[in-house]
């Protein structure tokens, strides 16, 4: 390149009227703005495209008629996603009739560790749930007793339950990679 930019300036500057340079600048600005706008629109579209649309689908399922669900017993529900969920009715301390039963008398513990999502298993010999991923441990009621979940004060999550007209319902996931 033998082009000399200073030479060009010297010859051009006096011949370019101020107004044209204003329009030239405006055109430059407009071009730049439309470039930003079009690429920006594209980026937004691409981002939206990549963002998942649905969250995991869930539905309410019936577990049992509470009259047939005795205190201190459990029922097993198999969710459409494949998960086996144990629903327990707590033991009663003192007298209680079905009329005073509330949804809080039932628990459905999830086996998904609140730390980073591995599956816990129940160890009968230790009376605890154990998570093999980072050695998290949980009491039978779901409270963390050791490992990272304990440090962070996390418990095993619970499935939502509902009691309507003497029927116990549970909200379960419909799909998952297992199903």
């Amino acid at each position: 390149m033998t082009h000399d930019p200073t030479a060009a300036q010297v010859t051009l500057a006096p011949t370019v009227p101020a107004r044209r340079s204003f329009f030239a600048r405006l055109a430059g600005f407009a071009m730049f703005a439309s470039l930003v706008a079009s690429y920006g629109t594209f980026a937004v579209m691409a981002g939206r495209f990549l963002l998942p649309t649905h969250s995991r689908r869930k539905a309410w399922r019936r577990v049992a008629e509470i009259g047939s669900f005795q205190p201190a017993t459990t029922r097993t529900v198999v969710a459409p996603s494949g998960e086996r969920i144990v629903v327990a009715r707590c033991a009663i301390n003192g007298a209680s009739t079905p009329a005073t039963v509330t949804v809080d008398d039932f628990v459905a513990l999830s086996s998904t560790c609140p730390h980073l999502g591995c599956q816990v298993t129940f160890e009968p010999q230790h009376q605890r749930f154990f998570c093999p991923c980072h050695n998290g441990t949980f009491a039978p009621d779901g409270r963390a007793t050791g490992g990272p979940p304990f440090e962070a004060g996390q418990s095993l999550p619970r499935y939502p339950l509902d009691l309507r007209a003497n029927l116990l319902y549970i909200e379960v996931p419909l799909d998952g990679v297992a199903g």
Partner: protein
Amino acid sequence: MSKLTSFLRERLPVDRAKLRELTNEPVPHHLKHGWFCLGGTPAYRFVVMIVTGILLAFYYEATPTRAWESVRTISEDVAYGWFLRSIHRWAATLMVAAVVLHQMRIFFTDAYRRPRELNWLIGMGLLHCTLGAGFTGYSLVYEQLSYWGATVAANLTDNVPWIGALLRRLLLGGDEYNAHTLSRFFVLHGAILPVTMIGLIVLHVTLIRLHGIAELRFKADQNSAPRFFDFFPDHLLTELAIGLVLMLLLGVLASLFPVPIGPRVDPLLTPDVIKPEWFFYVAFRWLKLFSERAAFASLGAIVVVMAAWPFIDGFIRRRRPGSEASVFVGIVAVLAIVGLTVWEALVAH
């Protein structure tokens, strides 16, 4: 012949003398020692990864129903599938090892110091891309350990400040591991990360050429004039010889220790003994020692300090010239890495 030559000359107007000058980087004498040629090793592995990876992609299917089955097909039914798969895996293992060793040699020979700070940052980028490719690649196999490793890692991204939840959803393509997750890992593994790495490698090498290779003197030849030898053909021949040895090593490892395929994913059962790939042992052990937030924050801080080290080191040495801080920090870091890795390797839980 001369017609062909002049035909090509006209179509490819390259000046031979210039080309020779451009490619003929004077190479400092210490590169006669193998320890200093480690940088070329991952680059060589990278080419092997691309070639074998493209071949594997002909049969691999990135869906939850087919992924494990397709890897089994590669390993058991396709001609030489087991060999190509094993080369891909062994090259990945050796590549991570070579990147780490290369970074250690840069650190302990002070080659990251001014004016080469930017290349250290690019190198950090390459380290993370390599680890990312190793992680996403292993997830593709869709065996028990790779599935649970991916689940743990994806949930960990929740801890990234502000954008963690978004990042996790983007990575998984949903709230948790689902039918879209594997294809996202595959695109990252086979397209985004390799292309990013090619870009970073080009920048890395360009900066090396612009600065020249950091010269290093051993005690023995401290008083003599700096010695250099030609890149072409001397150093190229050395690198070619290294390449041959590496190929041989890969072939032997892949034949003697072909990569197995573990049990297929069971999303409802985490295996009792779970380990990531060996190069994540450090982080894995760390996760067991602290709560999630503390572990993530400290790992993040370590990575930031690592990336910023050339600047931190510069600051320390401006304050206290002749400080040996970097040597101590380096030794502590290496001991910690080795210690945590060995600890994790020795115990089941």
